[in-house]
Every structure is written in structure tokens, then in C-alpha cells.
């Protein structure tokens, strides 16, 4: 069979050119720059630089602060993704069942979507302000010795709480539309076949939401890795002692505040590799289980 041959023309290339231009300027070029920089050692004033092969990588990988940040990032991302998916799934299922005032519930739950991460961080800052923060006061009045300024775990709790809260509304929208995509008659057939609502949820509803859940898992991990930058920068700034700095935040701190361009570039190259591996893993192994 012969393939359909289109006449060669410049027009299609013209149409994709803006996108290619944007990707080149804002992604490919900086990425190449980062890879190049990661092989250089620069003096503190940026006057001279020296090609050092993999020394920056060796330094990064052997530094305990990077390892600690990497571990925090993994724990943080997993917790943020799992918690925000679980909470929003619960909320979506309950909101879907509501009959009276359903619209108000749904609108209120979606509202958070409109809030930018730094603003969410600012809100968190106010709620946890040691002088006037309501949550800070509440926790301490309940007898917890809550102090996120000094205690690393408490600080992690604060950033996770803000990050999850910010993401719940996004996930909620997707789960709600996913739930509404399940045919009503399938749900009804299940009501006739199975008495327990919990069992029905885990055997029918949840498997049918699997494509949505998988999609959200990818989105949420990416969010936890990269987009929480704004939240961390506004709320804890990585403190105490860098314990709440994710890898992305550490790249920024070391490169732009610490002026170690080579080391920070090496970190971002490592980050790129990690994300690529994670993405391949997700599509290879998890997506396989969700198709029907």
C-alpha cells in the first residue's frame, strides 16, 4: 500500500515555529546551558571559569546537605501526592452524593484552584505566625509543643499542609469529572450486585477512576517536585537549616544565593535525570495496570 504523500510546503513548519521557539528559548537553551555550566568551576565573582569534568557532580553527590534534601524531596513528594489525592478523592465522592446544595459545595471546594502557590504560602505564613497565627496558637494550646521555626518535623508539616491544601482543589475537579463519567446504570447495576457501599467503591468506582488517578499521580508528583517552590520560598525558605528545602529550592539557594553556579547546575542536571527516570517508570509500570 502506498502512503499518502503530501506536497512539501513550509506552512506546517511555520505553524509549529512559535512553539519550537518558546521551547528552545525557555527550555532547550537553559537546559543546555545548565549541562555546560555543570562542568565548570567558577570563582565567586564570576570573573573566570575552569572546565572540571565531573567534579561538581562528585561534590554534590558526596555532600550530606544534598542527600538530606533529596530524601526530604522524596518523602515530601510522596506525602503531598498521596495525601492530596486521597483527600480530594474522598471529598469528590462525598460531594458527588450530595443532592441539596450540590453546586455550593462543589464551588467552594474548587475555589482553592484560583490561588497561586506563593499566595498559599503567604496564607500559611499567617496561620503559623508565632505571634498571631491561629493554627500556631491552636496547636500550642492543645498541648503540642509546636514550633516550625526550630523543629524540622514541624516545619515539614507546615509546608506539606500548605502544599496539600493548595493541590486538593485541582484534584477534586478531576475526580469529580471522572466520577460523573462513570455511567449511572453501571453504578446502579453495582447497587443490585453488592450491598456494601465501601466494597462497591473499591471494586467498581475506584478501578473506573484509575485512569484519572494515574494522571493525577503524574501531575501531583510534578507539582510536588517543582511548583511547590513558591510555597517553600514564602513560608519556610528551607529552614530550619535547609531541612525543608526540596531539590529545586536547593538549586535556587546554592546557585542564586550561594553563587555556586557550577554546583547548582550539576544539581539541576541530576534533577532532570531523576524526573526523566520517574516519568518513564510511571508510564511503563503504572499505566499498564489502569487500562481497560
Amino acid at each position, binding site marked *: 500500500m502506498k502512503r499518502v504523500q503530501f506536497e512539501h510546503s513550509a506552512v506546517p513548519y511555520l505553524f509549529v515555529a512559535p512553539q519550537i521557539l518558546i521551547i528552545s528559548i525557555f527550555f532547550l537553551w537553559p537546559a543546555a546551558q545548565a549541562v555546560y555550566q555543570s562542568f565548570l568551576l567558577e570563582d565567586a565573582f564570576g570573573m573566570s571559569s575552569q572546565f572540571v569534568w565531573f567534579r561538581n557532580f562528585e561534590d554534590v553527590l558526596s555532600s550530606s546537605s544534598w542527600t538530606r534534601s533529596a530524601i526530604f524531596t522524596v518523602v515530601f513528594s510522596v506525602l503531598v501526592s498521596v495525601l492530596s489525592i486521597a483527600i480530594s478523592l474522598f471529598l469528590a465522592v462525598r460531594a458527588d452524593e450530595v*443532592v441539596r446544595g450540590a453546586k455550593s459545595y462543589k464551588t467552594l471546594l474548587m475555589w482553592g484552584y484560583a490561588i497561586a502557590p506563593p499566595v498559599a504560602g503567604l496564607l500559611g505564613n499567617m496561620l503559623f505566625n508565632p505571634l498571631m497565627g491561629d493554627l500556631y496558637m491552636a496547636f500550642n494550646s492543645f498541648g503540642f509543643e509546636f514550633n516550625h521555626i526550630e523543629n524540622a518535623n514541624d516545619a515539614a508539616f507546615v509546608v506539606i499542609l500548605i502544599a496539600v491544601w493548595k493541590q486538593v482543589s485541582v484534584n477534586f475537579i478531576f475526580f469529580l469529572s471522572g466520577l460523573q463519567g462513570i*455511567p449511572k*446504570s*453501571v453504578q*446502579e*447495576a*453495582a*447497587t*443490585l*450486585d*453488592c*450491598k*456494601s457501599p465501601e*466494597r462497591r467503591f473499591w*471494586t*467498581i468506582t475506584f*478501578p*473506573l477512576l*484509575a485512569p484519572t488517578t494515574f494522571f493525577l499521580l503524574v501531575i501531583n508528583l510534578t507539582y510536588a517536585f517543582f511548583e511547590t517552590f513558591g510555597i517553600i520560598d514564602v513560608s519556610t525558605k528551607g529552614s530550619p537549616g535547609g531541612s525543608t528545602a526540596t531539590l529545586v529550592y536547593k538549586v535556587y539557594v546554592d546557585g542564586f544565593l550561594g553563587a555556586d553556579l557550577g554546583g547548582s547546575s550539576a544539581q539541576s542536571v541530576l534533577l532532570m535525570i531523576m524526573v526523566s527516570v520517574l516519568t518513564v517508570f510511571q508510564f511503563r509500570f503504572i499505566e499498564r495496570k489502569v487500562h*481497560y
Partner: protein
Amino acid sequence: MATVTLNQAEKTYANGYKAIHGINLEIQHGEFTVLVGPSGCGKSTLLRMIAGLESISDGEISIDDKVVNKVAPADRDIAMVFQNYALYPHMSNYNNMAYGLRNHGHSKSEIDSKVREAARILQLEDHLERKPSQLSGGQRQRVAMGRAIVRQPKVFLFDEPLSNLDAKLRVDMRLEIKNLQQRLGITSVYVTHDQVEAMTLADRLIVMNGGVAEQIGSPIDIYEKPETLFVAGFIGSPAMNFLPGKVSDDRTHVVVGDKVKLDLDHDVEAGRNVTVGIRPEHFRLCGDDAGPVSASVRMVESLGAETLVYLDFGIGNENVTLRVQGTHQFAKGTVLKLSITPDMIHLFDTETGKRI
């Protein structure tokens, strides 16, 4: 096997709309009951009330003398076949059929033998490991049937199960459903808007209109003695002809329009205004002999086995349909002589629509 009893069952929605107005009905052991009516008549709502998918606003529904108003759908011991199959898309066909049994705590070997038996009856043995999306419409409907029969329920509920299938498959599945129901002897309630399905499947037919059961009876009874104008017009295809008429002074005939006189042997008072109902198949062509009725041809539709002729009876623009066996060629304007025996004439009160 079981009986289903409806005692003044009513359904009123939250917005105040009354979908079902107090229906009384007793369905016997193993009886095949068909609910038929136009869309919006409440037939599906009534079925869903028996299933437990809709709450019962007033009155009682009992299965085997046990009131089920407050019983969960899964505990009513019923199985339902839906119009769009409603199979679980993520499960294999085997698991689709086994799902209900598993939730009712049957043993693994018992489930396996039941599912395989159902698959054998429905010729699905080769498709058990596949998913519903890999099957054709007819096969999917079979899996849905299989899911219902493995449960060996007291009552089968069918909600327009054949409307998504193409015409030929519909006829095959109709026979299959009838056959299966007779073999298993399970009490069944079947909802349809298709009167051929209704006539062929039903032991007992319930014609519904506006949330009310207009008539309950055997299909032939309903065809021969429709109690209301609505039932008369709904059952039978092409539909019954309705003509405005007036009973003559000597009560021996009814005058339709200004020239047609039909003989009567009904017991009806003289001079009363009535609606005369005549089925298209009950006219007889009289050839050239003088029949009592003469009418000119407006249009002819040939269907091969039969011919539909649309006639001008001199009552405005309305056509009167005549159905004759075989093929006939009538030119437009031809005057046909017709006769009809008095016992084939239905009379209805023009005001109330009730049979006289």
C-alpha cells in the same frame, strides 16, 4: 419463583412531580409481565421502584408477600438487565457475571459452575476471559443476561433491554429471552415502548399512560377489547382509525361524516356522539359488489406481504388506513367498496375516552 404485589404504589419526585399514581398489580409465580407505554409514562420508574433504585413515595411493593419498601436493592433477590447493558468495563465477562455471586458469599467452585452454566446457555463460553469492550452489542447484552441468571433471582427486571440492538438481532434476542424465561420459570417484569416486543413476550400486558395503568390484561384481550381510546390507539400497528360518529335514531347503525353508515349491534342509546374505532386490518374489500362504505384512495404503501391504503372518508383531511393482504395496485382516486362486521367496530365515549 416469586410473586410481586404492588399495593397503591406511588412515586412523587422532590420537585412535586407525580410520576406514578397509585398502581395496584399482582404478578403471579413465573409470569412474564410487560409494561408498555410512550416515553414519560412512568413505566421505567415503576420498574426501578420494584428494583429499589427509586424510593417508593406511598403504598407498598412486596416480593413473595414481604414488603420491600425499605429493603436494599441487593437484598431484594432481583436481577436487572439494563438498556445500555451496564457491564463493568474493567472486569472480564467472567467476573462481570461472578461479581454479584462473590458479594453474596458463594464458594469459589459454586460460582465457577454457575457462571460456566450460564455461559453455556448463552453461548458465551469462548468469550469469558475477554472484556465487554471486545464484544459486539448482542454479545454484551448476553453477558448482561448472564449476570442476571447466575444469581437465580426471584424476579427478573428488564429495562428496554433490546432498544440498543439492530432490528435483526432484536428479533433473535426477543425469542431468546422468551425461551430462557419459560425454561427458567422466573417471574419477570419487562419494560418496553415497542409494541411488537410487548405483544410477543407478555403473558400479561400493562399499558401505561401518564403514570396510570390504563389497562391490564393478556395481549390478545387488550388488542381485541381496548378499554380506552389511548390503549386502542397505542396497541396495534398501523394504529386504529378513529372516526367521529353519531348513533342513528333506530340504534342499528352509526353515521360517520355525512355519507358513511356502519351497522351496529352495540347496546348504545340513540343520538349519542361517539368515537368509532376500526383497525386497518378489519375492513374487507368487496370488489365491485356494493359494499356499505365507499371511499377514494389517497395513497398506497406496498410492503410486499401486505398493502397499506390511505383512504378519504370525507371527514376533513384525515386519512383512514386500510390494510390488505398481498400486493394491490390502486390508482389515486380509485373508489373502493368496503365492508366491516359490527363486532369489529369499537365504540368509545367521545368525552371520557372509555369503551362503550
